[in-house]
């Protein structure tokens, strides 16, 4: 019943050794069957049947099945999408993906052996540099899983240096799924999370924040926040005696917005997806963390440093490894091992292509196009939050957001994200995101369709 591995019929395209190799190799090993090599597994836990799963499929069959699944999604493939909420569709220059497909990047692993991994190491070093330049902070790591877990790591880091304090303040306008993830992470660590709400303009309630900070080891504020509103770093930074964490979910905003480091923040964490990575249903993305120099030995994850080889040649290497799990085990700054290197490389390529001027231009276009649409919509819908925005904003209609968005979907528009899914009492609100990819025509069309939908509901 179980297939005979030595039968050439059972050869698989991914597994070279086959009918002629197996006997030769068994002879060298000195056993007479592959089964004997599994003698150490107790026979009563051995499976005496094949797994009950589909396959083996040819590529032809895989293409058929997976494409048919993909075709069942309603996505930006044939809809115009205004979805954001922490995942943004920006320009993805064609060369990024084609470079990522190079085997030397795609199929290598963590650069433990620097002599044969300088490509990966140098690119991480460059990526770290970009992060520093963009955030105005000193030391960046190689990558974390995503923005939400980066925030978790920042909370854990600040707690470690937080002189026994056990409270962290998180703005309610931080991405609610990020805050939820922090709750999961810290649930057994005796850390108390206090949320602080927003004022009518959508910015954080500074008085409440100040009050909550007493006894807190850190505050985490997102800007642009989950309502799309840009926070005033300077005002927040003026709060004393607490470590300040800036959360960035729309990384392209760093192209034109004030960098947190230059405005008094100690740590910036966030999601790098907007730097040329597809939205791909939420992952893989890439979390970043950049900290003040003083915090570098508390950093989670991998760090690449510059050094020289025995010939004095400049070279790069994983460094400060004593922070990490493979050395420090239970005392490590994080349990992270595999991270998001390839995605970070994609972001690095994106940042290099765009460079100083491109990053500004992307930011500027997002800003202008969002403002254009917002102004247009302002003619006939309520814009509940008046604070300054970057490329995303909340729209309020007299009707349930899901209903209005359903109307838009009929017109092949993915019109926004219902805010009611995240905040009670906001069932009529939805988030609308605009990027440099939207044409004026698409913006005008959106406004027209939304207006029509609202009048139809009326």
């Amino acid at each position, binding site marked *: 019943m179980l297939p005979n591995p030595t039968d050439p019929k059972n050869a698989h395209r*991914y*597994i070279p*050794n086959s009918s002629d190799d197996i006997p030769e*190799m068994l002879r*060298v*090993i000195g056993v007479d069957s592959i089964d004997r090599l599994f003698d150490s*597994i*107790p026979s009563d*836990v051995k*499976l005496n049947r094949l797994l009950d799963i*589909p*396959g083996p499929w040819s590529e032809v069959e*895989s293409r058929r099945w997976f494409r048919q699944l993909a075709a*069942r*999604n309603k*996505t*930006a493939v044939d809809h115009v999408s205004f979805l954001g909420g*922490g*995942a943004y569709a920006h320009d993805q220059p064609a060369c990024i993906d084609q470079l990522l497909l190079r085997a*030397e*990047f*795609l199929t*290598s692993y*963590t650069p433990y052996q620097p002599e*044969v*991994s*300088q490509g990966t190491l140098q690119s991480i070093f*460059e990526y770290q540099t970009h992060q520093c*330049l963009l955030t105005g902070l000193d030391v960046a790591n190689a990558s974390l899983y995503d923005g*939400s*877990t980066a925030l978790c790591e920042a909370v854990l880091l600040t707690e470690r240096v937080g002189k026994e304090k056990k409270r962290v303040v998180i703005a309610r306008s931080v991405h609610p799924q990020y805050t939820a993830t922090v709750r*999961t992470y810290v649930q*057994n*660590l005796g850390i108390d999370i206090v949320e602080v709400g927003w004022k009518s303009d959508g910015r954080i309630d500074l008085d409440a924040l100040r009050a909550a900070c007493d006894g807190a080891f850190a505050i985490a504020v997102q800007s642009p926040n989950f309502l799309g509103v840009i926070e005033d770093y300077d005002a927040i930074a003026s709060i004393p005696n607490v470590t300040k964490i800036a959360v960035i979910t729309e990384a392209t905003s760093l192209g034109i*917005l004030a960098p947190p480091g230059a405005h008094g923040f100690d740590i910036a964490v966030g999601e790098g997806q907007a730097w040329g990575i597809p*939205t*791909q*249903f939420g*992952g*893989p993305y890439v979390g970043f963390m950049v900290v003040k120099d003083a915090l570098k030995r508390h950093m989670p994850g991998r*760090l690449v*440093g510059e050094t*020289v*080889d025995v010939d004095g040649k400049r070279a790069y290497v994983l*460094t400060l490894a004593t922070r990490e*799990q493979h050395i420090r085990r239970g005392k490590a700054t994080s*349990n992270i*091992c*595999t*991270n998001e*290197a390839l995605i970070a490389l994609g972001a690095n390529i994106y940042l*290099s292509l*765009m*460079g100083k*001027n491109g990053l500004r231009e992307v930011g500027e276009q997002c800003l202008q*196009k969002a403002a*254009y649409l917002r102004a247009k919509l302002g003619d006939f819908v309520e814009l509940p939050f008046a604070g300054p925005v970057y490329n995303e904003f909340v729209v309020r209609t007299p009707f349930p957001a899901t209903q209005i968005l359903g109307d838009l979907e009929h017109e092949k528009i993915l019109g926004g*994200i219902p805010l009611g899914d995240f905040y009670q009492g906001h069932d009529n609100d939805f988030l609308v995101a605009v990027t*440099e990819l939207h044409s004026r025509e698409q*913006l005008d069309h959106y406004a027209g369709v939304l207006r029509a939908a609202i009048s139809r509901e009326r």
Partner: protein
Amino acid sequence: MTEVLEKETTGTATPQGATRERLIFEHSKRGRRGYQLPALDVPAVENLLPANLRRAEIADEVEVSEVDVIRHFTRLSKLNVSIDAGLYPLGSCTMKHNPRINEEIARTPGFALSHPLQADHQVQGNLELLWWLEQSLKEIFGMPRVTLQPVAGAHGELTAILMVHKALAKGGNARKYILIPDSAHGTNPASAAFAGYQVKELKSNSRGTLDLHVLEEAVNEDVAALMITVPNTLGVFENEIQAMAKILHAKGAYLYCDGANLNAFVGVARPGDMGIDVIHSNLHKTFSTPHGGGGPGAGPVGVSERLIPFIPTPTVERREDGTFFLDHSHPHSIGRMRAFNGNFNVLVRALTYMRSMGPTGLRRIAQIAVLNANYIRARLKGPYYLPYDAPSLHEVVFNDKNQTAHDVHTLDIAKRLMDYGFHPPTIYFPLIVSGALMIEPTESEPKEELDAFCDAMLAIARECEERPELVRSAPHTTPVRRLDEARAARQPVLRWKK
């Protein structure tokens, strides 16, 4: 020859075949551009932002052309080795062939352009895919439920231990300790700590496995779980795993399995049938999603009945009518482990791979992976010392005992392998082996490549005797030679500065 190689360099030269490449920042020159956007087609409004919210130019950011960028990263890539070019026998990492169809499928626009916050009815294809992946992993694990949210092995470990904590806490006592054998991977204790536990290390026996009496002595009502790797990091199966489960369960503790080594027995045996309560699997290992220089990965976690109530939200569920939805209603869930839905496009690759392998192929993975490891073991045993002689499954751990006499050590052997064109094995892990050389060939290697590797190892063993200095000073042929790692750590330079 040497002088020819050391041809005069110009300071700016980074030609083909070169062994160095400037930093992208050093390519920057004012006025160059690497991008183009459509012209702004809406009227530009000034002063949309208050001045203090706006940044000045991003000082020192690059100005390079597309050509510069492509050259730069193409050249950097040439400084790396890769699976597509040869054996990459990093023990514990399962560096197997990464089929290109997986890359193609993952790039299907309907997947790549789907957005994580779309309504369920808009992403039925994605949800069905996730549902099927869970079905397959359930069958592979022999377990009734699997969460797909964790994005790496360590993330899965944390998820697992948080579930254990929550389950125990619900029972009234979350307990204090997690037991971990001394052979375990560093992420195990780190994850346990982040889940709120203290770690107690258990000593392995002379086979490298865990003795039942050691476990028995350690387990008590303060112990939440044992984290054990199967087969362990020596590649040796914990053949008393069922008895361990009994001991733990009798004391109300859980048995967690680090499934990083699933490649050794996928399709041959199932964790669920061994009494394991919870397991993670690194899809970037057993299920071939590319390692990408250090990620992305995915670390789904399978659970036994008892832990189902605690799995992360949301889960993917199928309705009677065949439609799918994200279910957020798990009142006892530990919560979400990450924003959105995990590393979806890694999961797409893994399911593509499972379908390509099918039941026969998955079983064949384990069979040939174990065959290959044992072949290497047979060829190298003797010249290299085997500190634990228990039967190997998918990997074999030697050490440098035979070579230290000549003052040559594991690191030297690893570096010398590079001169022979091979990526070294994992070294100095597991910690219970002094000077470990941990070799995992995977099922992807043809016999010829294994032979070439063994020939190189044997040649090095001879060199250790005859010309130890050659080995100690290796590598000689790599883009850079041995690095001053101490300097990197003592005076950290972690970014470029102008």
